[in-house]
């Protein structure tokens, strides 16, 4: 017969009872630690320079977030003169708005309703 979950938990809990610690043991441990800590120095804080690829990743992440999540950008594109709206038949609640701001700038906004 298999041990039931409750029984198994009880057995494990019983076996992993906390080891006893005497006050003398703790005192000796602290004295030893105090001595060793006094002999070493605290390291200075690390000023981490952000690698270039982290900046790129964060930029991509921010752009993706703005593209999909930021309502203001969608509405701005949708209300623009040179914009058009596309509504998906497959997904009723999805809307897409594209804005052409110039020869080299093209913005597409997608929104899930």
């Amino acid at each position, binding site marked *: *017969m*298999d*041990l*039931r*979950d409750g*029984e*198994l*938990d009880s*057995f*494990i*809990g*019983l*076996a*992993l*009872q*906390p*080891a*006893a*610690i005497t006050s003398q043991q*703790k*005192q000796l*441990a*602290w004295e*030893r*630690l*105090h001595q*060793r*800590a*006094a002999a*070493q*120095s*605290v*390291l*200075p*804080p*690390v000023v981490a320079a952000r690698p270039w690829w982290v900046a790129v990743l964060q930029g991509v992440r921010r752009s993706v977030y703005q593209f999909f999540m930021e309502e203001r950008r969608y509405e701005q594109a949708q209300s623009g003169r040179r914009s058009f709206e596309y509504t998906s038949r497959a997904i009723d609640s999805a809307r897409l708005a594209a804005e052409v701001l110039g020869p080299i700038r093209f913005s597409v906004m997608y929104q899930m309703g």
Partner: protein
Amino acid sequence: MSITEPEASDAELIERVRQDNLSALGSLFDRYYAQVYRTAVAITQDSAVAEDIAQDCFLKLHRYANRIDTTLPLAPWLYRVTVNLSYTWVSRQKKRRVSLEAVVDCLMSPVWHSPDHVAESNELQDQVRQAIRELNFNQRVVVVLHYLNGLSLEEIADVLECPVGTVKSRLYYARESLRHKLNTTNWAQEVAHGFA
């Protein structure tokens, strides 16, 4: 022991440790020594090694105080260091191929023996401890953090810096392994029938 301000928060004490204040280190030692030591004992199952690990853990707390994020709770950081130091020790032990005598010594170690328990329960505890000892390191750590330290799956994932699903999986397989091992012993079956 230097216990100056028991009401000070961990962050405040770490801030003082950064100024090389050993009294503040003493307060943190007083607050967390038992948890660190017991975790190390449960993982390594060697009280002398656990003492060394606890020492090294608090030495790291002192040495790297400036690099600890005080906006986060300290306990997970201490558990993480304890687990890492234990892992280093266990790895070295494997390389040394501990002799059978050493294992027997470890089994007979008085660190596990609590005066509050009757002799009948010792056999049961020893069997379960043996089964826990035979788990692989990752499973043993999850079992110890969950059952000894009472950490949730999310908290263990935070300590081990791995996904919650991984912790859940390790705990599941550890429990199944323990269940299987305990089922194969006659006494366990007898106890199980006794409970039923």
